[in-house]
C-alpha cells in the first residue's frame, strides 16, 4: 500500500502560518526512502517545536541508524504550533512527517523522544492530529506502535495509558533490535496482531509494555505492587547501554535545517555517563557508567561534521565535558587545527577549577573572551555537601580570579533553589558568593568592569536518584527565598550593580515534579489539561499552572491522593515507587544510603578515580567504565580555509 504525500494540502495552509519553513523538510542530509521498499517504517518525533526538536542528538542519531538498515525507513515529525494545528483541524490535514510529508498514522512505529516531561501534552496533540486513539487500549491493527524513549521514559507511568511501549537508556542498538522484531513479525503475517508483536518485544526484557503490568494500590493511595498480567513478561525491565562509543560515531550526516533552531552548531558527544555523583542529577544516575569516545574518534567526527554540515561552531557535548580523560589534548588539538579558520569551539557543562580556564582559553583562541559559566548549584558549603557537588568556596574564588585575570569579563553561576534540607540562609549564600566573586574580579583586574550573573533554577526531585524519596519544596517557599535573594542583591550598594540575577517562579517546577514522580493516575490529569487546551508546556507563554491545578483537582477527585501528595510529600524507604520495576541498574539500597548520606552532609567520590562504591550499575548491566587516556594525539589533518 503506497502512501500519498500530504504536502499539496499542507502547502495551501503554509502561507497563513508563522515560520512555514519549519514544516517543509528538505534539510541538508535528510533522507527520503522509498515507502514500498521498506518493511518497517518509523516516524520519529521530538514532541516540541521544530526549532527545539531538530537539533536533538537522540533523534538525529536514530534517524540515521534506522535509515541505514535496508528494510527500514525513518522520517521525522515535530509538534506543530497552535496556528497550524487550527488550520490542520479545519482542513482535515493529519499529523505529517517533514521528510516526505506522509501521514504519521501510516507508519509502523511512532517513536517519541522525551528529554523532559513537559512534552506530554504535545504528544497527545500529535496522536490526535494523526488520527491515532489517545488510549493505547483503543488502538487497532492500522495504528502505529507508540514508543517512548529519552530520559523521561525512565518513569513512563504518567503516560502509561497513551504509549504502547517504552525503552530505557541508549537507543542505538535497541532501535535496531525492535526494527528486526517487527520485521520478523510482519514477514510471518503478523501473528497475534498488535499484542503479538508487543509480547515479543516485552519478552526480551528490554522493552516495557505498560499494558502487560497491573498496578495495585493500597487504601491510602500508595502503590501496593506492580505485577505482570501475562506469562512470559519479565517482572523487571532493564535499561540499554551502548559500550564502545567509537563503534557508533553518529551523527555522521548531521541534519542542517533551513529554519533557525536553538542550537546552530555541530555537536559531538565526547562521552556518555557521569559518575560525579551529584545527587539531584537524574542524567548522572541513569547513564552510568562513563564511556568515553577516544580522542581520535572525536577528531574525526569533528572534521567530518564540519565538512558535512557547514556549521561554523562545534560543541563538545557530555554531562561534564571537562572530565574527559584527554580533554586537554582534545582542546589543544582542535584549537590548533582550526586556528584562524572562523570555526569556533564550545564546551558546555564546565566545572569549577583552574584547568577549566585553560580549556576555555584554548577554545577562545579564535574569538573573544566574553563569559564563562560554572555550576556550584548550591549557595552554601553545607548545601553543596548535601547535593554532593564538591566545590568549595575557595575553589570557586580561585577559579574566577584566574578567569578574570586572564581576560574574561563575565562569570555566570548556576544554582538551584528548593533543594532537600535547604533553608533561607542557604539561598542567601548565593548573594555572598556572588559578592566575593565580584570582589575577587575587581582585585584581579584592577577594574570595575567585571560582571557576575547568577542563574537559579527550581529543583525537581527525579526518579532513580537519591532524592527520589525527597519532599519537593512548595512554590511559595521557593518564591519567597528567591525574592529575598533578589532584594539582598538589589540593596547591595557596593556590588549589586555588578551582579545580575536570572530565575523563574516556582510554579512550573511543581508541575514538572508531578509529571516526574507521578504514577498512572497522573495520566488523567495530562489528558484533562490537553483537552482544556494545554500545549507546549515548556514555553512560559503557553504554560498555565492554574489549568494544571484545576484539571488535577478534577481528575483526582475521589482518589486518596492530590498534587501535594505527589510533589511535596517525603517518601518512606520501603514505599513502592511507580518506577521500581524499571531498572536503571542502580541498587535501591545504595540509593537509599546515598539519600541518608545527603541528609548527613556526607560526600561520595567519583568512581573513575577511587574504588567502586557499589552503586550497582556495572554488575547489573554487565558494563564497565571505559576511559582513556589513549595517549594518542590529534593531527592537524585538514586545512580549512
Amino acid at each position, binding site marked *: 500500500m503506497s502512501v500519498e504525500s500530504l504536502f499539496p494540502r499542507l502547502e495551501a495552509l503554509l502561507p497563513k502560518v508563522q515560520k512555514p519553513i519549519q514544516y517543509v523538510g528538505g534539510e541538508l542530509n535528510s533522507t527520503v526512502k522509498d515507502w514500498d521498499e521498506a518493511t518497517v517504517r518509523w516516524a520519529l518525533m521530538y514532541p516540541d517545536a521544530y526549532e527545539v526538536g531538530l537539533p536533538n542528538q537522540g533523534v538525529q542519531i536514530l534517524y540515521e541508524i534506522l535509515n541505514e538498515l535496508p528494510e527500514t525507513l525513518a522520517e521525522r515529525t515535530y509538534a506543530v504550533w497552535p496556528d497550524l494545528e487550527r488550520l490542520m483541524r479545519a482542513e482535515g490535514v493529519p499529523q505529517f512527517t517533514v521528510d516526505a510529508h506522509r501521514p504519521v498514522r501510516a507508519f509502523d512505529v511512532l517513536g517519541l523522544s522525551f528529554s523532559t516531561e513537559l512534552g506530554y501534552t504535545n504528544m497527545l496533540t500529535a496522536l490526535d492530529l494523526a488520527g491515532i486513539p489517545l488510549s493505547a487500549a483503543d488502538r487497532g491493527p492500522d495504528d502505529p506502535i507508540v514508543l517512548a524513549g529519552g530520559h523521561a521514559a525512565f518513569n513512563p507511568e504518567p503516560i502509561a495509558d497513551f504509549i504502547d511501549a517504552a525503552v530505557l537508556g541508549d537507543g542505538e542498538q535497541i532501535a535496531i533490535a525492535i526494527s528486526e522484531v517487527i520485521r520478523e513479525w510482519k514477514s510471518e503475517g503478523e501473528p497475534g496482531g498488535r499484542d503479538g508483536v508487543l509480547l515479543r518485544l516485552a519478552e526480551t526484557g528490554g522493552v516495557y509494555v505498560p499494558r502487560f503490568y497491573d498496578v495495585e494500590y493500597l487504601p491510602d493511595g500508595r502503590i501496593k505492587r506492580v505485577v505482570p498480567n501475562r506469562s512470559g513478561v519479565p517482572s523487571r525491565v532493564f535499561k540499554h547501554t551502548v559500550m564502545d562509543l567509537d563503534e557508533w560515531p553518529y551523527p555522521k550526516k548531521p541534519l542542517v535545517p533551513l529554519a533557525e533552531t536553538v542550537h546552530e552548531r555541530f555537536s559531538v558527544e565526547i562521552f556518555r555517563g557521569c559518575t560525579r555523583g551529584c545527587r539531584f542529577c537524574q542524567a548522572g544516575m541513569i547513564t552510568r557508567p562513563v564511556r568515553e569516545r577516544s580522542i581520535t574518534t572525536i577528531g574525526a567526527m569533528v572534521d567530518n561534521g564540519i565538512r*558535512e554540515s557547514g556549521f561554523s561552531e562545534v560543541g563538545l557535548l557530555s554531562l561534564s565535558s571537562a572530565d574527559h580523560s584527554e580533554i586537554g589534548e582534545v582542546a589543544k588539538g582542535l584549537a590548533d587545527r582550526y586556528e584562524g579558520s572562523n570555526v569556533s569551539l564550545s564546551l558546555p557543562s564546565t566545572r569549577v577549577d583552574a584547568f577549566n580556564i585553560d580549556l576555555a582559553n584554548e577554545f577562545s583562541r579564535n574569538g573573544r573572551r566574553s563569559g564563562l559559566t560554572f555550576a556550584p548549584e548550591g549557595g552554601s558549603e553545607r548545601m553543596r555537601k548535601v547535593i554532593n557537588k564538591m566545590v568549595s568556596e575557595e575553589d570557586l574564588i580561585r577559579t574566577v580570579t584566574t578567569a578574570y585575570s586572564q581576560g574574561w569579563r563575565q562569570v555566570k553561576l548556576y544554582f538551584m533553589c528548593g533543594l532537600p534540607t535547604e533553608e533561607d540562609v542557604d539561598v542567601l549564600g548565593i548573594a555572598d558568593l556572588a559578592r566575593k566573586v565580584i570582589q575577587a574580579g575587581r582585585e584581579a583586574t584592577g577594574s570595575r568592569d567585571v560582571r557576575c550573573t547568577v542563574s537559579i533554577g527550581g529543583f525537581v526531585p527525579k526518579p532513580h536518584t537519591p532524592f527520589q524519596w525527597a519532599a519537593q519544596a512548595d512554590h511559595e517557599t521557593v518564591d519567597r527565598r528567591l525574592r529575598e535573594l533578589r532584594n539582598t542583591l538589589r540593596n547591595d550598594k557596593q556590588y549589586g550593580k555588578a551582579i545580575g540575577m536570572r530565575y523563574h517562579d516556582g510554579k512550573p517546577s511543581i508541575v514538572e515534579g508531578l509529571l516526574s514522580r507521578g504514577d498512572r493516575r497522573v495520566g488523567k490529569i495530562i489528558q484533562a489539561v490537553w483537552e482544556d487546551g494545554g500545549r507546549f508546556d515548556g514555553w512560559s507563554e503557553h504554560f498555565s499552572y492554574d489549568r494544571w491545578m484545576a484539571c488535577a483537582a478534577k481528575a483526582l477527585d475521589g482518589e486518596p491522593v492530590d498534587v501535594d501528595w505527589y510533589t511535596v510529600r517525603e517518601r518512606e524507604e520501603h514505599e513502592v515507587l511507580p518506577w521500581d520495576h524499571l531498572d536503571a541498574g542502580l541498587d535501591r539500597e545504595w540509593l537509599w544510603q546515598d539519600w541518608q548520606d545527603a541528609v548527613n552532609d556526607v560526600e561520595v567520590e567519583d568512581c573513575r578515580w577511587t574504588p567502586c562504591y557499589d552503586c550497582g550499575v556495572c554488575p547489573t548491566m554487565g558494563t564497565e567504565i571505559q576511559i582513556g587516556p589513549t595517549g594518542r594525539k590529534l593531527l592537524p589533518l585538514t586545512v580549512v580555509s
Partner: protein
Amino acid sequence: MAQRLRVRYAKRGRLRFTSHRDISRAVERAVRRADIPVAFSAGFSPHPRISYAGAAPTGVASEAEYLEIAVTRPCRPQELRAALDASLPPGLDVLDVVEARAGSLADRLEGSLWEVRLPGADPAAAESAVKEFMTAGEVAVERLTKKGMRNFDARGAVASLTADQDDHVEGGPNQSCVILRMVVRHETPAVRPDDVLMGLRLVADFAPPSPPSVTRLAQGPLDASTGEPADPLEADRVGGDQ
C-alpha cells in the same frame, strides 16, 4: 579581498518558504562546505562578506535572486557556480555567476517581472479587474508591517499587468487557472504582488478562491523597448572572459 562575484540563484518549490535570514544562513554554510575562500569582515566578530540585493518575500518563489560574494583569492565563476550549487539544498539553485565589474548591482535592480498563478479563479473577472486597476490613477491599499498598518498606493509602481488563462493545470480538467504577469518598479514603499492582488480586490471585488502562487521571473534594469527587466549581470559580462 581579491575579487567580487555576483550570483543569480533561484528559490524554488517548497524552499520558497525560506525567509531572507534562512537563506543567508544556508548560503554561509554552503560556502563553507564548498571550501569557497570567502572574505571576512574585520573587527570583533567577523562576518563572511556576502551581500544580498532585493530578496523576494517569504512564501514567494523566484528565478532571479542576487547576491554578491567577496573572496580572498580569484575564483573561476563557473567553478564557483557548480561548487556552490552542489552545497546548497535542492530548491536553492545557483543559475549564474559573473565576476563583478564597476557599478553597484543593487542600483541595476530597477524592477521585477512577477508571475502570479491563481488556481480556480474566473478568467473573465480577472481580465476586467486588471483593466479597472490599470485605468485607475491611484489604488490605495494597506498592509500590516512590523511598524503597524501602512497605507500606500499600489498602482503607481505597476508598469504593466496582464491576465491570461492557463489550460494545462495539474488540478484536473475542470480547474481553470489565471496567470497574472506584472512588471513592478522597485520604489519606496515597496509594492509586492500581494499588494496588487489586494488592489484588484478593492477596485473590482476580484478575490481568487485559493492562495496565489507567486514567482519572480526576473529583476533588473527596465528595458525601454520591451518594458521588462533585462539581465542585470550583462554589464559585468561585457568585455569579460567568462
